[in-house]
């Protein structure tokens, strides 16, 4: 039977959850050996991605990517984290920041499978569509 990356990730999570860092290290070593034995090392990247998803889901962590036209201040970052935490009902938010001057202003927030586009560029595009209609 073929084991999927998600199934591997779930097994790893079950084995590592609630363990001390030392124990976790041992679990990971054993897991890597198991993958090598089963010739599944090629799936490692996918397994890691699935593991992170499961981990975040189980611990109420939301990963978000925020794109802005200018570098965000600490205060704004905090406000955005609080906003995303409120929206996703998460315990914790990890936020990756990006800068793209082309969006002119505002922010584009991506978390989970959602995208909140509050950029000035998109607002202007919407305005243009309304004008053309």
């Amino acid at each position, binding site marked *: 039977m073929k084991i999927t990356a998600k199934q591997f990730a779930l097994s790893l999570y079950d084995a590592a959850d609630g363990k001390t860092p030392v124990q976790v290290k041992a679990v990971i070593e054993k897991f890597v050996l198991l993958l090598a034995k089963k010739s599944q090392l090629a799936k490692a990247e996918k397994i890691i991605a699935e593991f992170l998803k499961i981990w975040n889901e189980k611990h109420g962590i939301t990963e978000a990517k925020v794109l*802005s*036209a*200018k570098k*965000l*201040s600490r*205060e*704004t970052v905090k*406000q*955005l984290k609080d*906003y995303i935490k409120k929206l996703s009902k998460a315990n914790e938010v990890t936020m990756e920041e990006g800068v793209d001057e082309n969006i*002119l*202003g*505002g*922010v584009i927030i991506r978390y989970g499978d959602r995208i*909140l586009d*509050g950029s*000035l*560029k998109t607002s*202007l*595009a919407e*305005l*243009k569509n309304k*004008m*053309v209609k």
Partner: protein
Amino acid sequence: MENLIETFHIDWRIFIAQIINFTIVFLVLYWFAFKPLVKVMAERSGKIVKSLDEAKLIEEKLSQTKEEFNKTMAEAKKQAGAILEKAAAEADAKKKETVIRAKEEIGAIINQEKQKMQTEKAATLKEIKKEVADLVIAAVEKVLGEKMDEKKDREMIKKIIK
């Protein structure tokens, strides 16, 4: 009587001979002239009567034929009239139908042209709108790009997450 005979010097023998001569001549004439003549006359009379009868018959027939001819002509005229009337009615109906069809076709062409014009108008209008929108948005983008500083950007983000 004897006086009379003496007066005219009648000789009985000559008289009898003359009677016989006369009878012979009469009989000869009767057999060879009068009888054939009477026969020819009778034949001719018969022919004439027959001809007259035939002429009468022809006249009757002619009259009858004329009547029939008139009747036939009247019938023909009637039929011709009916045909003409029918043809006129058909021509009229066809004319009306042609006019209606022509009107319909003209109406359809007008509608088609109207629709085409409306479509073209809408397309042109859309194109103009797009051009204007492109210009307006480009101008706004330029102005906002120049005017947007960190403070304004922060305020904008605040409004978004409010």
